[in-house]
């Protein structure tokens, strides 16, 4: 039906793509795979303990406090970078608070509007929490990718998902050329489907 599928060129190209793409996404797949075990078995909090506090003085306080640009203006003066996930003007306390996330650290920042002093609480993440962070973000709660690296990781996470699908499809294609292994392969696919179906029946019945 599709003669190109059995051509030597197509086979060799598919094999090379399977190899090179597989090697490229291997470390990223490891991040997602190891973090699954961490998420399932270790209590991880993304609000880790405070390691130290730091104070910084800024020159200019924004006139308004209702947009991300205002936070960015403050961050630029204090030489802070990262993904802003929360910001709020607390009028009664005369403070402006925001949270900056990076895979290695969470920073809770409070700006005293009277003294123009930033109080920065550093909450570093250990290695396991970084893996969980990278698995969980981006995700359903990450609509505001206001940091270049959050956006890049979002693209990469999509790439890993599409890459895994591509690798499994090309893997099936390469397997079909191994005539001697077809029966065992079919049996394993069936076994995978049946075992999965049994668990799903228990979960969904």
């Amino acid at each position, binding site marked *: 039906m599709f003669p190109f599928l059995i051509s030597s060129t197509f086979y060799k190209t598919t094999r*090379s793509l399977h190899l090179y793409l597989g090697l*490229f996404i291997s470390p990223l797949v*490891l991040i997602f795979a190891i973090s699954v075990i961490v998420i399932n078995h270790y209590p991880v909090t993304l609000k880790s303990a405070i390691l130290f506090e730091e104070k910084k003085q800024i020159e200019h306080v924004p006139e308004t406090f209702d947009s991300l640009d205002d936070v960015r203006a403050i961050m630029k003066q204090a030489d802070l970078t990262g993904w802003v996930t929360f910001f709020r003007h607390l009028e009664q306390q005369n403070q402006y608070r925001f949270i900056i996330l990076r895979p290695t650290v969470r920073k809770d920042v409070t700006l005293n509007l009277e003294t123009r002093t930033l109080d920065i609480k550093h909450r570093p993440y250990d290695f396991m929490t970084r893996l969980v962070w990278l698995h969980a973000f981006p995700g359903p709660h990450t609509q505001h990718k206001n940091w270049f690296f959050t956006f890049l990781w979002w693209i*990469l996470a999509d790439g890993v998902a599409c890459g895994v*699908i591509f690798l499994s499809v090309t893997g099936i294609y390469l397997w079909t050329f191994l005539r001697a292994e077809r029966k065992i392969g079919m049996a394993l*696919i069936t076994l995978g489907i049946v075992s999965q179906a049994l*668990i799903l029946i228990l979960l*969904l019945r």
Partner: protein
Amino acid sequence: MLKKLLTKFHFYLGLFFLVDLWLFSLTGLFLNHPDWSVNEYRKESHWVETTESVTLAQSGDRFEKANYYLSELNLEGELSNVQEQENQFRFRVRRPGNEAQVTIHFDTGKVQLRKKSTDTYGVLNTLHIFNGMQRFDPGKEKLTWFATRLWVIAMDGLAVGLIVLVLTGCYMWSQTQKIVSGAVSLLLGLGTALVFLFL
């Protein structure tokens, strides 16, 4: 001999986990894009509240009591947020596609039951994240539902399977003539991963 063995193991493992790989990859994409139409169920599913009666549990710890109320109310799923207060007993029970919030009022013996269900995409997305949510319930020491335990084992199995697939894949590459070009691919991926892990 080792090369032949690991090559077979590599594709046997890939074929066995095929359905899981597609399930978690596709739902990973769905979760990554909240604005896609497959995620409409988030807006469309609503809580439905009913009131029922139940005989109050007399003994047991809070999880034993919650399990008793589950069987009385014909509910099944993973327990979370189990709280015993002075006048009421509250808990949540979740399974892929369905969630219930239960509040039992001691003074009246009435049960306030709030239920929510989702469509097929909601079920699929929940399967991606359904692990008993222990980290949001510090008092909970173990999973309470047999099916959750099985699902967590399946997720762990897939994770270990992926790690083995990566390792056997690297071994298979080391046996080819494409060492340099393969190393470039691997190092690019490794560099990308390290940048994000130490960012």
